[in-house]
């Protein structure tokens, strides 16, 4: 491969930049997204570990790191309340928008969707490349905001006005970063939908597509239609901050003892409606790809068809549709009145049904299965009860009366972390271990993988389970110093437990990183293109897949999960003979 050659057509040698940096190959773009996202996940995790130190040992200098932080953030190594707020806002923003979604959708989705439908690339390869680089710029903006004099945004990942409008910090950069991230998502979602519908290979009917593809398609519709209102809201908040408008500033607002000299007439609750209009579908964007990955891993490692394949599809589609109708359950405490509360409470109860169906069908798949306890399967199996806990703890939050007590407490933090952390993140770990052999052609170290799993599983429960009890005991979110309130100090034992489990969890991730980095270059090479004996089309390619995925187009003869129906034990989709 010549590094001076800059031709980009056909099988000509492409320069390094054209092949690995500005590539239009969905596989390269997928890896770019995945690596960038994982770096952001590490950064977001690192931030919260500092915060957990402050909670466990209030007003004590953060070991080692405290010495390196600027005085405005760590006074003599002790985290300042301002920095606490920064971490609160940026941890959430980074994990959701720069970590999980880019990894699950940009990374896994980009790499696998075209291959699993039998296509040579996405429908719009150049648009795909553009969407990565727009995401990258958004990430750079978010990261760069840490170096602003006033620091980055510190107004919650939710950026509620009036605070977010009057705040003298990097909120403007947060908004600009979000505009880029949202644009990237929109471009990507158009690509995914067109590819999934139009570029399916011969014989790949809709009801022969893997559940991973279905999950990505529903996710793409959510991104396409739910993000624009937040983009609009972001523009409005930018107008308020930069041009002094009053979209979200009510009349007569007093800040720091002085009346604001703005026109007023705005409505802070408008921001909340527009924000949550996206942010609720966003949580289904967070979970759906994980459902898809877990389904693939369970099918492969149970050696039987997924129970209720069609039911799962209808449930995911219904879930996606309903996700637009529940958003104000995040706003029960804004004085909505009983009519509105009742409506959103009802829709929220309804939306729990497809989630339960999805979990149940995956669980029923295990019945009578010949389970292979591979590392991906351990994560996929753990996903099921972890997501169940996350989902069940969402129910009292969705009931307006119970939410009065639980809103803005640690119960909420416990709930949403269960679905995203031992939920989605475990699903993503399963995906990394499962598809690693196909992407790299090498195997990961099994012992390290199992150690990573067990330590993470135990530690992560140690971090988040206590939070349900703390929440029910009235411990509020976003408290800088637990010792200030007696009822909070009372559960300090649990706070310390959470914190130390989070440190152990952090340490365990080094096992993961060491494993995948070492194995990517020095791991044992796979002996076959299909080491897991799986049925879906990505296992029919060479390893790693060539530029065009399928030099000769494949034809599909059956559904995606025909396991255990023949003596061979599995029937790949593309083989005429079962």
């Amino acid at each position, binding site marked *: 491969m010549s590094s001076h050659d800059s031709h980009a*057509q*056909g*099988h000509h040698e492409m320069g390094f930049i054209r092949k690995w940096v500005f590539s239009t190959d969905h596989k390269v773009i997928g890896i770019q997204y995945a690596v960038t996202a994982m770096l952001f996940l590490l950064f977001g995790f690192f931030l919260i570990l500092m915060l957990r130190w402050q909670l466990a040992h209030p007003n004590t200098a953060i070991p080692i790191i405290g010495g390196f932080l600027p005085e405005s953030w760590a006074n003599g190594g002790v985290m300042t309340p301002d920095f606490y707020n920064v971490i609160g806002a940026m941890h959430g923003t980074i994990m959701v928008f720069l970590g999980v979604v880019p990894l699950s959708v940009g990374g896994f989705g980009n790499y696998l969707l075209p291959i699993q439908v039998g296509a*040579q*690339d996405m*429908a*719009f*390869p150049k648009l795909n490349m553009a969407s990565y680089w727009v995401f990258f710029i958004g990430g750079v903006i978010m990261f760069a905001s840490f170096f602003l004099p006033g620091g980055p945004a510190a107004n919650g990942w939710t950026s509620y006005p009036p605070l977010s409008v009057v705040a003298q910090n990097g909120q403007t950069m947060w908004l600009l970063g979000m505009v880029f991230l949202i644009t990237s998502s*929109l471009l990507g*979602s*158009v*690509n995914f*939908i*067109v590819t999934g*519908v*139009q*570029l399916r290979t011969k014989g790949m009917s809709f009801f022969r597509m893997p559940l991973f593809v279905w999950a990505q398609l529903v996710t793409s519709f959510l991104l*396409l*239609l*739910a*993000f*624009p*209102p937040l*983009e*609009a*809201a972001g*523009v*409005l908040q930018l*107008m308020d901050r930069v*041009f*002094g*408008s*009053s*979209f979200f500033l009510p009349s007569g607002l007093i800040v720091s003892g002085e009346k604001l000299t*703005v*026109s007023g*007439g*705005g*409505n802070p609750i*408008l921001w909340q409606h*527009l924000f949550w*209009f996206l942010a609720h579908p966003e949580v289904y964007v967070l979970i759906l790809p994980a459902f898809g990955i877990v389904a693939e891993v369970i099918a492969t490692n149970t050696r039987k068809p997924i129970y209720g394949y069609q039911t799962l599809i209808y449930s995911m589609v219904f879930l996606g549709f309903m996700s637009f109708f529940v958003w104000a359950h995040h706003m029960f405490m804004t004085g909505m009145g009983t009519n509105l509360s009742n409506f959103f409470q009802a829709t929220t109860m309804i939306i729990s049904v497809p989630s339960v169906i999805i979990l149940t069908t995956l669980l029923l798949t295990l019945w009578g299965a010949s389970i292979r306890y591979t590392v991906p399967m351990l994560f996929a199996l753990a996903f099921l009860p972890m997501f169940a806990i996350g989902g069940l703890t969402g129910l009292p939050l969705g009931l307006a009366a119970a939410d009065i007590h639980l809103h803005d407490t640690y119960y909420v933090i416990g709930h949403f972390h269960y679905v995203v952390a031992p939920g989605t993140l475990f699903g993503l770990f399963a995906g990394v271990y499962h598809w690693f052999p196909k992407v790299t052609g090498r195997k990961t170290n099994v012992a390290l993988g199992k150690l990573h799993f067990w330590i993470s599983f135990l530690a992560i429960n140690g971090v988040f389970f206590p939070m349900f009890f703390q929440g029910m005991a009235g411990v509020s979110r976003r408290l800088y110093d637990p010792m200030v309130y007696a009822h909070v100090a009372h559960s300090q034992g649990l706070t310390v437990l959470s914190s130390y489990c989070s440190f152990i969890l952090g340490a365990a991730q080094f096992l993961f990183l060491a494993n995948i980095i070492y194995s990517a270059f020095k791991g044992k090479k796979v002996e076959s293109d299909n080491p897991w004996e799986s049925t879906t089309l990505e296992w029919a390619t060479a390893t790693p897949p060539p*530029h*065009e995925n399928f030099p000769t187009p494949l034809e599909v003869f059956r559904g995606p999960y025909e396991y255990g129906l023949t003596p061979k034990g599995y029937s790949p989709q593309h083989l005429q003979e079962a």
Partner: protein
Amino acid sequence: MIVIPYVDKPHPLTGVTNAKFGIWLFLASEVMLFGALFSTLIILRTGSANWPLGSTELNVPLATINTIALITSSVTIVLAWASLKMQQIGRFRVYMALTLLLSAVFLVIKYFEYTHKFEHGHFPSTSTFFAIYFTMTGLHGIHIIGGMIVNAYLMGPGSAMWKKNPEQFTGRVECAGLYWHFVDLVWIFLFPSFYLL
């Protein structure tokens, strides 16, 4: 060599090309974008004690000219596409040029409108009326600029594709037209919302 199907021929099941499907998906997201802003307009207007009558604050005759300019540009761009369907590349360029000219007229008038407002001390910070007026017409204007860039490209360097793949090029012009009609559609609602009510 990567081969992407259904670039110039429609998919047998859906009956659309990738680009046609893609542009409609994009327009769907734009409906949600402007929908959120129209929602905001309704909220601000109903929540205001003294929302001005459009004609007292804004220049109705100029905006009417703009409306006619944009509607005409919608006709010229669809005629540009029709010319390609009738294999008349020359006519295509003429109609595209007219579309660009009318778009420029729109932007120039908008420029005069805005500067007139600023000279009289009307800014987004002045009131929620001006805040939403500038935001929505400004965002609309940015969409016009984006469309003009695409249209200019298709009229100019992009038209080289006509020789190599006339169907794909015609499809591209159709998609650019769809986007342009959408921008016109938004204005059809913006115009009365701000200027006539």
